[in-house]
């Protein structure tokens, strides 16, 4: 559920929603959601001074009811 919610939030704010991909990784300390976006969109999801990234983390953690790590990465196309 939380990965779908994050996917929806990110897809709505990028120019290439079809390239958005979320991977959930569970480890001893908790959950990390790895968000892959088109390289052209990485600036948008991070935002000025990391403002958008922070907003995404705040909303996702509130929805999950616990601290969720959100990592934002570029898709490495053409490799």
């Amino acid at each position, binding site marked *: 559920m939380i990965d*779908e919610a994050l996917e929806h*939030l990110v897809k709505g*704010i*990028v120019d290439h929603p079809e390239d958005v991909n979320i991977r959930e990784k569970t480890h001893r300390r908790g959950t990390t959601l790895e968000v892959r976006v088109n390289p052209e969109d990485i600036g948008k999801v991070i935002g000025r001074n990391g403002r958008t990234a922070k907003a995404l983390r705040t909303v996702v953690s509130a929805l999950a009811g616990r601290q969720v790590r959100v990592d934002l990465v570029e898709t490495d196309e053409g490799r």
Partner: protein
Amino acid sequence: MSTKEVSEVVTDKSETTLVAKLEEEGDIAADYLEGLLDITDLDGDIDIDVENDRAALAIVGGKLSHLVGSEGEVLDALQELTRLAVQTSTGDRSRLMLDIDGYRAGRKDELKQIAHDSADEVNSSKTSLKLAPMNAFERKVIHDTIQTLGLTSESEGEDPERCVVIFPAK
């Protein structure tokens, strides 16, 4: 005379265009938020309105306090993302306001009261009054209220210390 009439017509037209644009903003924002509520299985109705030249959205559900967070932190984050979703779709920056379960409305009443009390104080002391630091939303409510009371106000300082100063009537 004729110049005035022309300018009124122009104002009317741009006013209509602005409202239509803000209504479109509201619709895009509502879609974004509705999608989120669906995925997370949260109950909430979304009201769309236009207030003070901004699109205003309110989610009313009754069990959404975790989406407001302490001091509205989560609400501000969700508002920021919703503005970006609108901007992505329209290409223009959005200044829409989001409220959840009346959080801002409640805070707004409180701020209006602060503005009224401060205006009274300024009126009797005839000297300017500096209020406590506030965020942009809070300062806007104060400025709007002060204006309706016939006084003037300005913001000064840098965030997060930025605050409103109210000036006595001349």
